[in-house]
């Protein structure tokens, strides 16, 4: 509802339809947060001047002028998007048996490939769909994703070759089949490459990521990293579990030493029971995670070269410029089924890859049902209708639009419903608190991609704030 439609003039903080500015302890010696959660408006105020500042009509008036436009901006971000990407699983099979994988073991071990002909047909259908719906100057994206796309290499390469002018392509791979030929093929077609590695030593990596025979992958991943050095469009995903969280800061050093430009340090998704066995405690994982972020800062200051921890960078961006975020897990509803969807080897479509093992989240089949019908299916509505306002304690949490209460698959499978939180809460709280401390100290540039705000425009500024 528009703020102006409510019979209160909204003149007063925290009453009537005035802004609900919630103080937030960010753990900083000088500043605390002051957040209007509904509009994702934030400010940092001196702790010793909070009362004076809340009485300062000048800066409050400047926010009042923008409040409705910020509310509309969040409304558009949360409910007004159309899909612009597909996570395309061209095979069910994988040559690894990672302990936390969201794809059921029988699929990964004995599953099917999508045929070359069907891959081409599916890309044709996607091209036709995006031609009708895409309103931006950017190409739609197709990301070849789990289980292991390179096991269906011929279909993969054909698809990229035939549709190179129609999509921006990406791939997430475990690297076992990522040889010099494949790297050369991807580089020449500007395919964005994500690889997976969970630690700086073979001993750590092998605890969670190994072949069906139990063989480790550390050496192969290192070989792939050598091949990728110098390429600007690659990243490493490290999944945080009980098995590796103690070595996260060392991992950051390792990745930086290997000239990795981007990484994701993601706390494990607990959708399937096997992942929950290695779920770390929220607060302990957060401590190691923040240590790793601080390590990345020190490495940047020392070397002048950044290793961007993309999931944290995204939290910073969600605060500084909500619509500029690149990851869509930390907003509610999440991006699943609304800014992207996942296509399985059978042609079945799910809101996100995370749901591929869960048949009740199947929205339809790309070869049998129209994509628009699938997006409007009840299976999709379950996910696209999940919002923080319906979740306890998120509905009263000041940082609900910087966290988004991920992930719906976890909430449903692990905690029993879409109105439940996911597997973690305090981890995300600590992440946002750290982000605010970084902003309070004016250090945000050190954690963000160079030029992250290209194409943005300033809509609010308190003079003297470093942007």
């Amino acid at each position, binding site marked *: 509802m528009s703020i102006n439609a409510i019979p209160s003039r909204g003149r007063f903080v925290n009453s009537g339809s005035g802004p609900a500015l919630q103080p937030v302890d960010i753990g900083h*010696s000088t500043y605390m947060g002051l957040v209007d959660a509904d509009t994702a408006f934030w400010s940092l105020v001196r702790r010793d001047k909070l009362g004076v500042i809340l009485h300062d009509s000048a800066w409050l008036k400047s926010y009042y002028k923008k409040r409705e436009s910020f509310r509309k*901006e969040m409304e558009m971000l949360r409910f007004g998007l159309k899909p612009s990407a597909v996570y395309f699983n061209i095979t069910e099979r994988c040559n690894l048996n990672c302990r936390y994988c969201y794809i059921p073991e029988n699929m990964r071990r004995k599953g099917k490939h999508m045929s070359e002909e069907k891959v081409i047909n599916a890309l044709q259908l996607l091209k036709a769909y995006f031609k009708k719906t895409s309103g*931006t100057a950017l190409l739609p994206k197709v*990301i070849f994703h789990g289980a292991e796309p390179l096991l269906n290499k011929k279909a993969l390469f054909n698809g990229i070759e035939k549709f190179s002018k129609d999509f921006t392509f990406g791939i997430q791979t475990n690297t076992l089949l990522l040889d010099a030929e494949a790297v050369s093929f991807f580089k020449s077609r500007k395919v964005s490459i994500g690889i997976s590695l969970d630690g700086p030593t073979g001993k750590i990596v092998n605890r969670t990521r190994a072949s069906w025979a139990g063989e480790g992958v550390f050496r192969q991943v290192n070989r792939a990293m050598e091949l990728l050095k110098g390429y600007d469009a*690659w*990243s490493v995903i490290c999944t945080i579990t009980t098995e590796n969280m103690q070595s996260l800061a060392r991992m950051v050093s390792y990745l930086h030493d290997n000239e990795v430009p981007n990484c994701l340090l993601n706390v494990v998704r607990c959708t399937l029971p096997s992942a929950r066995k290695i779920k770390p405690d929220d607060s302990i994982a957060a401590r190691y995670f923040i240590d790793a972020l601080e390590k990345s800062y020190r490495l940047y200051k020392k070397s002048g070269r950044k290793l961007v921890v993309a999931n944290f960078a995204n939290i910073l961006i969600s605060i500084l410029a909500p*619509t500029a975020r690149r990851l869509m897990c930390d907003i509610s509803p999440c991006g699943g089924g609304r800014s992207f969807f996942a296509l399985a080897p059978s042609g079945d479509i799910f809101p996100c890859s995370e749901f591929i093992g869960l048949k009740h989240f199947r929205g339809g089949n790309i070869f049998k049902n129209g994509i628009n019908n699938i997006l409007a299916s009840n299976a999709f509505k379950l996910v696209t209708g999940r919002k923080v306002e319906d979740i306890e304690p998120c509905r009263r949490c000041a940082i609900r639009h910087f966290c988004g209460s991920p992930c719906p698959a976890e909430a449903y499978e692990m905690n029993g419903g879409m109105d439940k939180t996911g597997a973690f809460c305090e981890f995300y709280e600590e992440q946002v608190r750290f982000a605010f401390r970084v902003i309070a*100290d004016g250090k945000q540039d050190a954690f963000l991609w160079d030029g992250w705000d290209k194409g943005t425009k300033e809509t*609010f500024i308190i003079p003297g*704030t470093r942007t």
Partner: protein
Amino acid sequence: MVKNKKTGMNETKKNRNDVIASRKTCRTDGIGLSHYILVDKKSK
């Protein structure tokens, strides 16, 4: 630099406005998830 006794983190003394606040906007194009981040974008 000052050490924050609560968090142990070093904080700079440079930014000491009473209030810090800013916001930027742009066309939304986020599509990443926890399993992947797209590093590059291509125009039509």
